[in-house]
């Protein structure tokens, strides 16, 4: 990141081409969806995931948000795809902040992503493990 650029190359790349900004395509045994938003700010995020054999087979996002959140959501989807659903419960914020060189003042918004994932995880647990 150049000192005069608030966006790291990783953020710029993902923002320019967010490959995971997709509605969920295809049919999955379990289809989850969770949204989160920041009160008083334009920051809305939604994840949709397809689960197969306890793994995240497919995941996509939608976001009306700042470039950092869009890039982070896109990054998250790429990371999560193929992992076990337990990954929804991972603490992602620090990893995201570091990997994308996100400035500190955006921490609150990045937490939002974690919140949405947590909620996906909870949904899965509620619907399938406990059910």
């Amino acid at each position, binding site marked *: 990141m150049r000192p005069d650029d608030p*966006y790291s190359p990783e953020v*710029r790349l993902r*923002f320019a081409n*967010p490959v995971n*900004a997709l*509605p969920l395509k295809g049919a999955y045994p379990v289809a989850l969806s969770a*949204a989160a938003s920041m009160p008083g700010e*334009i*920051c*809305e*995020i*939604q994840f949709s995931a397809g689960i197969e054999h306890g793994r995240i087979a497919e995941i996509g996002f*939608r*976001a*009306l*948000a*700042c*470039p950092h959140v*869009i890039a982070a959501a896109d990054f998250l989807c790429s990371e999560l795809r193929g992992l076990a659903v337990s990954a929804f419960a991972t603490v992602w914020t620090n990893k995201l902040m570091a990997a994308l060189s996100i400035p500190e003042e955006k921490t609150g918004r990045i937490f939002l992503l974690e919140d949405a994932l947590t909620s996906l995880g909870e949904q899965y647990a509620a619907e399938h493990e406990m059910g």
Partner: protein
Amino acid sequence: MSADAIYLDYAAATPPAPEVQEFMQALLMSTGGTANAAATHLAGRQAARSIEIARGQLAELLHTTPGRLVFTSGATESDNLAIQGAAHARAHRGRHLVTMQTEHKAVSDTFRALEKAGFEVSWLPPDANGRLDERQLTAALRADTQLVSVMHVNNETGAIQDLAAIGAICRDRDVLFHTDAAQSVGKMDIDLSAVPVDLLSLTAHKFYGPQGIGALYIADRPGCQILPLMHGGGQERRLRPGTLPVHLVAGLGAAASLARQKMDDDHAHVSSLRARLWEGIRRVEGVRETLPESVCYPGILNVSVAGVEGESLLLALEPLCVASGSACNSQSGEPSHVLRALGLDDISIQSAIRFSFGRGTTAEHIEEAVRRYMQAVARLRDIAGDARAA
């Protein structure tokens, strides 16, 4: 900067005209252009001469006399000097001041500081067209009112105020009238021999002059006295001490002279660009012109759009260089107080983009801006999908 950047932020800063650049460069290479204008020797007198020539050029642009002009470091300093200076000079007569909610921070923050220092300030709202309602002004004036400050052209929206009407009301009540004309000097004709303005702020880098130099006009009439902010070598009639920066003052003068020659052409040029730009982007669903051209200086087009996040819009518009709200606010992240005063909701405000253009802008730049704006909005709405706000 990447070579394909398209600069559409002329309201934040205009690049110095080539003529101005060359003139400054020649001065910077001469002894007379880099000497201390307060020195009495040959080089100093040459420097003083450059400064007086520039003062004359600026006076001509404003239809006033050179003796009425004090050079400062820019409009921020001029605003502070005028407002603090007049408020303190007249404090023994009264401590009530009047301004608008839509002023630049250099004005509004100065009034806020005066409030803390025991002055009382009335903050008048704009009407739907961004203009001051003269009846509201008349109603706000009191026996102890000393100063009214209303900007000429708004830096975010381009809204124009009627200086003649406001000035007449102030004169009538023996109240000083200050106007921040940073956005209009050199772009619209201001005739200070006719318009009853007492104090007028300007800055060179808004009309193709260099950054770091401005001026304050101070009318020659009883009661129009101000106190200085700074003390020192006695320059500028003791109102603004410090070595006068010769190349900057001369650059300001050259820019003023050029502006006088080009004013009509410049105006026609930006008018046609604005029409073209709005014609292009009005096709975007949910886009809104903050104020219509009929009430604005046409070098500025402020638009908002539904269902798009502002920071992402700005990044998606790169390499267009445009402003989100005022350049002076853009780092703070707060929603623009100007757009709020106009009644825009925070969602619209955060999506607002100010396009501003000038001499160097071409029709191709505008076409490219239209194309990129449409593309950016479409792409962001695509990313937002269902998450998209109504």
